[in-house]
């Protein structure tokens, strides 16, 4: 049922985020703000070695220290392998982690846990733990991990939940292969072949709120955990299984989360809080230090991607072959699924090929584990593909924009990849019901002045402006796997309680779900009392990942609101002794011919006077497709040819995310994503020393974009309507991050002739390239 966007009053209209003011005013709303005042403070003893076996561990001195309540080593915790990935059931990630283990696999891996009356005592106690390590030879170069003589997971008891290519004895966490048509044959037929290899780094999430959790027992002796998580319902399930508790004994509450970007999909301190509170009966809390966030949580998967593309002289792309190698670090969280996205949410962009092939391995190394991070493989794949497309265009003597226009996805088209590749499993066939990519490309070119400026404009003898572009797609949730739900309850006075499992992590889902319900029930957002993500009080939701919230949870909310509206009309009809089809409702008054009743009166009657009952509705939704948002992005970059330094003067994007439920928040998602992507493209770099120690473990060593580096962002949206989305919406949370590495790479090349094949694109690399060109 297509909705006329012009008639919308709340959705697609400017609406302030419902909690912005309270947060600016400093209300206690985040996980650690809500810890019990007398919580035991938990600290973790972390490995100083990249790979070692614990020969002996003596905690007796630590236990004796005054104020220490609990010390745990691998000997004291359940020996049940699990995955911290925070995914649905069964997880597509290997169960290769124990809460504590006798092996440590990266510098920062957990050795032991201390809970004490305060931080000082806990830290003192850590120093008293005596550990004897047998130091093992680490694997620190992912290109040498496969069948390395150092086996990172030699232990028993680890497993895959279904076949994912898990071969721990070969250091392989997951592997995948697929082919449509015959790529070698098509390449052989092509007039032009390009063959390029790109490397991308282990970007850090660097969300400002560090990973935090705390626990207490309630009056019913149930474990209540506050956690800065993106996936409270998955947490509850995984914790119950791993600790051997009934699900009914655990309640997870997600308060306000200070940024997640995928990093908070996973378990960080929750198991330790649970164990401490269960064993001592006392409340406990664990707040990661900034150094722990950098060095002991997650990064993006570093990758090597080789792209081979074959095309005919007229610019028709025949075949794409994408071989990838991904570094999952010490544990295999999200190893397969991130890897598959490199293919499945990137390669369909060029859907007119006769053959396409994707595959490779995800290997273990002794680095900080990699996990979910906004973009989730698509940004790595996009960098390799979209830089290679520019190289191909040059070989063909074509404008890369024209090459893209000729070969890219259009509305009502499809790609066989959708059916073959899903998230760890088979995919789902779908047709692009909404795809305004051609418009996005055209409009973006106008905004950057492509015709006039591409490829470069000379500013002076030493300064050149280069222009680059790329296109991108993502998805909207995982079909037949991600489910969201929503309950609506009518209050006396006519306000509505809306409870959703959907996890607001700063992206604004509470606001946009309130908008969706308000629109359908013809009321205002402040009449919607939304409460989200509490496993006791709200209905289920898979959580905030895979760009699912607007589409999946938004659809659930819309469905519930539609049902509530029908229900209210039925109730009013009964009250007025009329037929429902004769009753009209304008959000406040029910009218039937000459009879009327207000929602206010009706709601009060039901609770106090007549036909007493509670009116409430619960609905859920899962996707049958995962409609991709699309984007075209362009940049204007000014390079100093003497120093290699450059500035991104303007970054233009035109996005098709269907209807923007909240235009300001959608822009915030796009621009926030772009800025993170620019960080990855330009300077964010994770550095290790030769022994596997992380050097970039604070904001001085790991620079994220600031107001100094970000100049102009020009962000527009295409007029688009996705028929399966709530009020025509698709997702917008991840797409913004995908393009900057390729766009900057292409712009720098156009300015200087230097093609940088490994991220970040630093002045040093540009200068080195310039020197080589001069030779």
């Amino acid at each position, binding site marked *: 049922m297509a909705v006329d966007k012009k008639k919308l009053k709340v959705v697609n209209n400017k609406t302030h985020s419902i909690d912005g003011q309270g947060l*600016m005013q400093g209300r206690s709303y985040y996980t650690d703000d809500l810890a019990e005042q007398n919580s035991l403070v938990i600290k973790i003893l972390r490995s100083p070695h990249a790979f070692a076996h614990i020969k002996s561990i003596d905690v007796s001195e630590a236990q004796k220290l005054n104020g220490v309540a609990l010390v745990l080593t691998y000997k004291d915790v359940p020996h049940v392998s699990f995955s911290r990935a925070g995914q649905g059931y069964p997880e597509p990630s290997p169960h290769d982690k124990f809460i504590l283990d006798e092996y440590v696999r990266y510098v920062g891996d957990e050795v032991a846990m201390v809970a004490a009356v305060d931080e000082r005592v806990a830290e003192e106690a850590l120093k008293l733990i005596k550990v004897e390590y047998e130091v093992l030879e680490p694997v620190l170069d992912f290109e040498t991990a496969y069948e390395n003589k150092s086996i990172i997971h030699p232990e028993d008891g680890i497993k895959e939940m279904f076949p994912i290519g898990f071969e721990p004895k070969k250091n392989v966490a997951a592997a995948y292969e697929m082919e449509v048509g015959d790529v070698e044959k098509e390449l052989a037929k092509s007039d032009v072949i390009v063959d390029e290899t790109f490397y991308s780094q282990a970007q850090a999430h660097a969300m400002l709120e560090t990973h935090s959790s705390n626990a207490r027992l309630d009056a019913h002796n149930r474990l209540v955990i506050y956690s800065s998580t993106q996936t409270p319902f998955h947490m509850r399930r995984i914790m119950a299984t791993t600790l051997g508790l009934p699900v009914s004994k655990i309640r997870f509450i997600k308060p306000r989360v200070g940024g997640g970007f995928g990093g908070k999909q996973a378990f960080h301190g929750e198991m330790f809080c649970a164990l401490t509170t269960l064993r001592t009966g006392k409340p406990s809390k664990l707040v990661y230090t900034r150094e722990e966030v950098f060095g002991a949580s997650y990064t993006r998967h570093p990758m090597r991607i080789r792209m081979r593309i074959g095309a005919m002289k007229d610019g028709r792309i025949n075949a794409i072959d994408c071989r990838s190698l991904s570094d999952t670090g010490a544990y295999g969280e999200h190893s397969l699924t991130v890897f598959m996205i490199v293919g499945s949410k990137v390669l369909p962009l060029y859907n007119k090929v006769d053959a396409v092939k994707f595959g490779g391995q995800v290997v273990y190394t002794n680095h900080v584990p990699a996990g979910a991070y906004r973009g989730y493989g698509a940004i790595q794949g996009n960098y390799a593909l979209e830089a290679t497309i520019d190289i191909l265009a040059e070989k063909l003597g074509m404008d890369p924009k024209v090459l893209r226009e000729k070969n890219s996805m259009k509305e009502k088209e499809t790609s066989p990849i959708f059916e073959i590749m899903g998230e760890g499993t088979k995919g789902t066939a779908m047709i692009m019901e909404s795809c305004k990519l051609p418009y996005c490309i055209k409009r973006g070119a106008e905004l950057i002045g492509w015709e006039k400026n591409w490829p470069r404009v000379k500013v002076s003898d030493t300064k050149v402006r280069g222009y680059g572009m790329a296109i991108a797609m993502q998805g909207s949730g995982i079909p037949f796997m991600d489910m969201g739900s929503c309950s609506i309850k009518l209050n006396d006075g006519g306000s509505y309680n809306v409870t959703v499992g959907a996890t607001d992590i700063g992206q604004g889902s509470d606001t946009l779900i309130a908008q969706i319900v308000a629109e359908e029930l013809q009321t205002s957002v402040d009449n919607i009392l939304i409460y989200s993500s509490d496993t006791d009080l709200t209905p289920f939701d898979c959580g905030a990942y895979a760009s699912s919230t607007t589409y999946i949870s938004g659809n659930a909310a819309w469905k519930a609101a539609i049902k509530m509206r029908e229900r209210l009309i039925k109730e009013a009809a009964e009250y007025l002794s009329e037929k429902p089809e004769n009753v009209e409702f304008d959000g406040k008054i029910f009218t039937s011919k000459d009879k009327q009743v207000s929602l206010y009166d009706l709601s009060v009657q039901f609770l106090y006077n007549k036909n007493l009952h509670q009116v409430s509705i619960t609905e859920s939704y899962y996707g049958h497709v995962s409609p991709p948002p699309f984007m075209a992005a362009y940049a204007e970059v000014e390079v100093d040819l003497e120093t290699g330094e450059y500035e991104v003067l303007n970054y233009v994007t035109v996005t098709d995310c269907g209807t923007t439920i909240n235009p*300001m928040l959608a822009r915030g998602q796009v621009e*926030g994503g772009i800025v993170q992507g620019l960080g990855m493209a330009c300077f964010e770099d994770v550095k290790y020393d030769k022994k596997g120690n992380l050097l970039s473990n604070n904001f001085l060593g790991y620079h994220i974009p600031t107001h*100094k580096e970000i100049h102009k962002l020009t962000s527009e949206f295409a007029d688009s309507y996705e028929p399966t989305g709530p009020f025509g919406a698709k997702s917008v949370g991840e797409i913004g991050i995908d393009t900057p590495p390729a766009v900057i790479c292409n712009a720098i090349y156009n300015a200087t002739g230097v093609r940088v094949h490994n991220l970040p694109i630093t002045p040093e690399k540009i200068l080195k390239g310039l020197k080589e060109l001069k030779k």
Partner: protein
Amino acid sequence: MLVTFYLNNTQVSYDVRPDEYLSHTLRSHGIKSVKVGCNESTCGSCTLLVDDKPVMSCSVLTASIEGKHVTTVEGIQEEAAKIAYHFAEEGADQCGFCNAGYALVVYALKREIKNPTEEQIIDYIVGNLCRCSGLQSQLNAIKAYLKEE
């Protein structure tokens, strides 16, 4: 040791350790608006005003503020609401973790520099990191607030 200072114009005395930092003291006394994003003076989320100057409270020893005036966002609620309005207008608010710190630094900027240039604004706020927003929207919101009479 006992330290006496003015917290949002009210005199308070807290018993603290000599090596304790202000962000810690305030949070442990229930003032949770002080956010700690790094605890090593590199992110700005713990920004407070000491005698009207923005400081990163995770690196200010509580012992050093004897007799001084400390302003947390609780002390500038109305101004914070105005800044929040402009953030919302520009779509600059997301997770909000950086926001209380921003409110204080932007408020201090307005009092300290009349009609600042864009460069002055950026120099003043650059220590306040935000990982969520596109930053440009924040800057626009800040400019709009600074223009307010």
